[in-house]
């Protein structure tokens, strides 16, 4: 076990998987000589050479299509898209091509590939470099969407994503890249589609993801001082959703808050709220309350006012408890 930063844990996962499987390669803008805009591929060009670490022009659609074509032929590409806000540049390839390859062609072809891309605010990067877009992709059948919140989770989930036979969108979080945490040195994998209980509790369930998990944990600490024990669930994966873990927790607590950094409107919180109301309304002692950003682009100058934080989560829990 070594203390490692989130971004370093990602680089480690890539290194270990490239060493394990020679069909794994990396492709993206500035992933080679520069080691990635955030350092996620640092050192890999020297170690694995230019055939397996491919620097590209700024051509996201070509990068994404190329990865797909090579995956169809049996390679396992790991694509880096520098900011999740750039994913719309290759949206056709992701949504109409990659996600549908297995289904549309009747299982003849499949696309075992990973798209790594960081989202989220907190760096004052402005409206076009700060979005949390996981709900867009969770709406597309055929994609898996992973949203790790810690260095340990990032490494174990990325290794699983690379070994997965379906396309995985691996949404990292820039504001977490410098976060430190314990990471095992050797090989381990974490299951895709399985949530993780980051803090157990009996009074209220808080479902969260990515950086918002840490805001939820901070909120749980404040609540604990008032004698309220919140259970914090880290989704880890937003597609497929781990309904089982969410439902089991709500059965125990009867109260649910869903907190994410993305805009509240039509976010993952809406999906979870609908699922719980459809399938376990009798268990609930109050409404499902969502925490999310206002329905506005991420403002450069007002970012800290815009992003939801622990106080918003606490307020949401109070609302549920007051019911």
């Amino acid at each position, binding site marked *: 076990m070594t203390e490692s930063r989130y971004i370093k844990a990602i680089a480690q996962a890539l290194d270990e998987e490239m060493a394990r499987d020679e069909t794994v390669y990396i492709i993206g803008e500035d992933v080679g000589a520069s080691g990635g805009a955030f350092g996620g591929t640092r050192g890999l060009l020297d170690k694995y050479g230019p055939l397996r670490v491919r620097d590209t022009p700024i051509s996201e659609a*070509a990068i994404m299509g*190329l990865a*797909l*074509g090579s995956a*169809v032929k049996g390679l396992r590409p790991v694509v880096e898209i520098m900011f999740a806000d750039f994913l719309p540049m290759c949206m056709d390839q992701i949504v*109409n*091509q990659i996600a549908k390859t297995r289904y549309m*062609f009747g299982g003849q072809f*499949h696309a075992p590939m990973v798209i790594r891309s960081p989202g989220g605010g907190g760096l004052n990067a402005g409206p076009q470099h700060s979005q949390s877009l996981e709900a867009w992709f969770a709406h597309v059948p055929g994609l898996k969407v992973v949203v790790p919140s810690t260095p340990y989770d990032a490494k174990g989930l990325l290794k699983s994503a690379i070994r997965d036979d379906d396309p995985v969108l691996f949404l990292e979080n820039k504001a977490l890249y410098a976060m430190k945490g314990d990471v095992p040195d050797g090989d381990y994998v974490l299951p895709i589609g399985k949530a993780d209980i980051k803090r157990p509790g009996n009074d209220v369930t808080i479902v969260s993801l990515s950086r918002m998990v840490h805001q939820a944990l901070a909120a749980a600490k404040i609540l604990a001082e008032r004698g309220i024990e919140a259970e914090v669930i880290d989704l880890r994966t937003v597609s497929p959703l781990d309904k089982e873990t969410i439902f089991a927790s709500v059965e125990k607590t009867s109260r649910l808050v869903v907190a994410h950094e993305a805009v509240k409107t039509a976010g993952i919180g809406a999906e979870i709220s609908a699922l719980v109301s459809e399938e376990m309304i009798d268990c609930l002692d109050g409404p499902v309350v969502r925490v999310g950003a206002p329905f506005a682009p991420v403002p450069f100058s007002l970012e800290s006012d815009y992003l939801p934080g622990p106080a918003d989560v606490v307020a949401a829990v109070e609302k549920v408890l007051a019911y």
Partner: protein
Amino acid sequence: MASKALLQEIYYSMLKVRRVEERLLDVFAEGAIPGFIHVSIGQEAVASGVCACLTPRDTIFTTHRGHGHTVAKGIDLKPFMAEIYGRADGSCGGRSGSMHVASKEAGVAGANGIVGAGMPISLGTAFASMFRGDDDVTVCFFGDGATNEGTFHESLNLAALWNLPVVFVCENNGWAQFTAQSTYMKIKQISDRAASYGMPGITVDGTDVLAVHKEADRAVKRARAGKGPTLLECNTQRWFGHYAGDPQKYRAEGEVEKAREIDPIARLETHLLAKKQANQAFFDATDERIRAEIDAAIAFAEGSPKADPSDILMDVYA
């Protein structure tokens, strides 16, 4: 110069494409095929001339107007027809239909319903050849309209930069759906664009299968030898409009009739007769053989069950 055997094979391929699509128009008009279809009648020399240069291991990508390329690449007509009928025994289990037919066995990595979307993917199968060090080639077919998509620019630049073993075949029938080339593009010759990517750009008469084959062969050999991509523009004619049933009101009077006077199959027949490389009996026997193959494929498709509704979630994920 193509041999007699090769030219006879190309003749078979072109006539097969023609007869398959004529039959598709008939059964579509009878209501046997759901959705809609786009035929390439008049453009057969491109599909057959290019695919004659490829091996079964090579891969092609095609478009919404893709029956011709797929048939010329050698797909088994039975699962092909069953796919267009939307039946369980279709090459894609009835999931794709006319616009998305694919066959792993035949090296057809997919027709595509999104204009310009095949080009980026074709880079990847070509890159896989480079990665593995084999000499397989990828051919990407697209129309003139697709060359105004950003994917054309991104893909040709990257293919040239990395010397990828891919041939970009622009089937220029002069029409982007209902819009004429002269109204959406300043230049006349699309292959001129190749120069800006640092790759050869060639324009050929796409109704002359000998010319198409000659230039395609050069481009495929170049790609196979690791010398990089080519943009091959084949000027051709779309006889039947954008979709089956398109009244083509946007075309000038007499234009379609004039286009039909240049029949690529008749051109090849004239050549074969002049060179004494085939006679009328060969043409008739080939036609008969093809019609029998198509009859069998239609019977297979009609006899195949509809896909099972309980399989609707199958193959969304592994």
